[in-house]
């Protein structure tokens, strides 16, 4: 069997398409988490933010009939959660982990309650037609890269464009330098006229927008429906992804693709019946997350002020 044959095999193409589809939500959440962590805030609330993005994205799209309105709705829901997180972690200097966990639990309840409020608890799951794949001319025919990147729904392209944009923002723009300063040395940032609180709040809102988009992708692009707790730990996996990607957008893209590949592999495995009980296949991304943490925790340098609340008065003894 020649290589080209394998690459153009429908199974392979399906696998590659699924890889991207499964990678994007985690990638977006990890990108969101990256903004927060670069500014020194540990955003444990990614899971709940993502779940809200999934629900409110779906709800708005269902009600308005427009997928794009849904996308905006999901992002705004994420931004609101970002503001709440900022209120607690920046304004009240609460424990970032405790607040994140509480938000996650809250959003499980809120999305499930609101879903029932909107759609009742009947057996017929409401659906929207997800974003259809768009084949980019010529590009989609490239082996491997074509199905991976150029035969996808519109939201995939949006997400992929966000990678270079985020990279430019954090590494090339003055706001990126300010974010790094706030995450590494908040006192120094203050002496240079950067408001630590403002930068952290901004980063948490951006974090919410991106993570909300990741959630909206789950409901509006990957599936076309909303299910209770449909994020299934992806927000936590994203925390490991951004570590593996060294808090760099390109690294996050690569790490997310690796996870997407693993996830796509296990889904294929279930469908093809390769003799392994499906539960062990479903476990794969979670096991992989732990492996990543074992391999990379402590080896990737964290921002020096990560997880530490900043009190301006402290700088004055």
């Amino acid at each position, binding site marked *: 069997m020649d290589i080209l044959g394998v690459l153009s095999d429908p199974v392979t193409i399906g696998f590659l398409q699924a890889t991207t589809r499964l990678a994007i939500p985690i990638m977006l959440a990890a990108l969101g988490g990256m903004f927060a962590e670069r500014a020194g805030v540990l955003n444990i609330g990614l899971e709940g933010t993502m779940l809200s993005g999934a629900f409110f994205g779906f709800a708005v799209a269902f009600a308005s009939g427009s997928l794009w309105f849904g996308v905006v709705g999901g992002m705004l829901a994420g931004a609101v959660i970002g503001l709440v997180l900022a209120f607690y972690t920046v304004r009240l200097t609460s424990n970032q982990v405790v607040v994140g966990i509480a938000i996650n639990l809250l959003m499980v309840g809120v999305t499930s309650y609101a879903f029932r409020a909107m759609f009742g608890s009947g057996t017929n799951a409401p659906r929207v037609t997800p974003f259809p794949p768009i084949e980019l001319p010529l590009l989609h025919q490239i082996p491997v890269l074509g199905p991976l990147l150029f035969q996808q729904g519109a939201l995939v392209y949006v997400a992929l464009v966000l990678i270079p944009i985020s990279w430019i923002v954090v590494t090339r723009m003055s706001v990126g330098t*300010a974010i*790094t300063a706030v995450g590494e*040395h908040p006192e120094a940032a203050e002496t240079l*006229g*950067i408001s630590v609180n403002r930068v952290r709040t901004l980063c948490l809102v951006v974090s919410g927008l991106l993570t909300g988009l990741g959630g909206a992708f789950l409901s509006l692009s990957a599936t076309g429906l909303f299910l209770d707790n449909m994020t299934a730990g992806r927000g936590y996996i994203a925390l490991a992804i951004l570590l593996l990607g060294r808090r760099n957008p390109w690294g996050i893209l690569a790490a997310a693709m690796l996870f997407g590949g693993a996830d796509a592999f296990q889904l294929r495995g279930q469908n093809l019946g390769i003799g392994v009980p499906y539960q062990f296949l479903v476990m794969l991304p979670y096991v992989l997350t732990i492996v990543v943490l074992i391999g990379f925790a402590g080896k990737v340098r964290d*921002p020096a002020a990560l997880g530490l609340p900043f009190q301006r008065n402290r700088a004055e003894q």
Partner: protein
Amino acid sequence: MQASSNSEPTPLSLSGVTVRFGNFVANDAVDFSVGRGEIHALLGENGAGKTTLMRVVAGLLVPQSGTIHINGQRADLRSPLDAAALGVGMVHQHFMLIPTLTVAQNVCIGMRRAGRFFPDLKAVARELDAIGERYGLRVDPNALVGDLTVASQQRVEIVKALYRGARILVLDEPTAVLAPQEVAGFFRVLRTLAEAGTAIVFISHKLDEVMSLSHRVSVLRHGQLVASKPTAQTNPAELARLMIGQDLTLPQADGSARPGGMAIEVRAIGYRDERDVARLSDVSLAAHRGEIVGIAGVDGNGQQELAEVLAGLLAPRSGQVLMASPGGPVDVTGMGPGGRISLGLSHIPEDRQRTALVDLSIAENAVLETIDRRPLSHHGMISKSAIRQFADQLIARNDVRCTGPEQRIMTLSGGNQQKVVLGRALGRDPSVIVAVQPTRGLDIGATAFVHQQLLAQRARGAAIVLVSTELDEVLALSDRIVVMFAGRVIGTLSRAEVTLERLGAMMTGQAA
């Protein structure tokens, strides 16, 4: 050369500046000014109020009273930005640099001038090169700050201040982080800057540097300005007297120490930090029963690391730590603090909030190290009444001002917290005491109390390793003084051999 002229307004002038922290007066109606092209040294012991005064100038502290004039205009400095806008640049003791950014990125953070959205790092680099050219302050604009040596980082701090338009430069203990061979070059830079018209405030407690560099010197003691005169009209002996006051430097320890056997000893200790910088190299020393060994040195020359190696908090990369035990010396190199405590070690750490105390009651803090012993606990069960009794005794013996043993320790004043730490460390009749900066932040009475306690322990037969950057403290208490420089023991002086000159020479790296 002093280039100040009377036709121009004074760059910086403070009058009657008073700063209080609670009831502690850090600056007491201080007047201070620096002229154009002048290098004005601000001299004083640790805690004399030098840094506080300059934090006022940098806009980091708002004084309770007093006025600041910059270039003849009344200045109301409410934030670092206000100060920077008026041309005040401060080089802090702990650098305000972001290690993960390049030099060019660091200097232009928050500066509109470098580009609203996209900083023009090439233009910044050109400006930095020009500044470097002008003042002999070469830095690589594209280097990551974290990769630079401490001396280069300091240059970056100065370049940063100049790039941001500083005409008044405040340097807080800038030579504390420099090796002696770096100091000369650094001084050349400062002189060049002054010749170009920059007003420079140089904070220090090192007499020789002040004498060789400054045009004018002001001395602070206990928050008060005690003298301000042209450097040419004074001498090191007079400055030392002004700094320390007339009443001190009388050795309190009687000279008749008869040291007993070895109590704790380190042999050829080496330690590198996580960035693989050597912090301790080939350090050997021993402390004997009934003697106080003072460890002197400029801050950051390995004293802190040595203390942590002795206490068991830091594992050395090489060498041995030995402690006396009833059965003879034991190698405790691989032993944590627990084993050493049971061999009779007490540690009074420098940073009590971080290393010695827990946010619990006074009583619980009092028994932290001895909770396993009877009657405090029995078969793993705590006896609350015994703990209370123990704490009551500690409070009474050490005169801890509190509402009772149940009071949370973090609500006590610093002095009273230190009394608990001291009472706990000394109350169990230790054979070895490692005391690090035991009187930092305490007032005179409290300092005397700590000194009495340490001397009483010495009389009892304990071996005491006293680490302090306060020379008068080391001089007052020590039977022997070990001087550390750049992570090494540069020399040991017995009581009889000590003179300020010899000590000073050794502290700046010149072996006796």
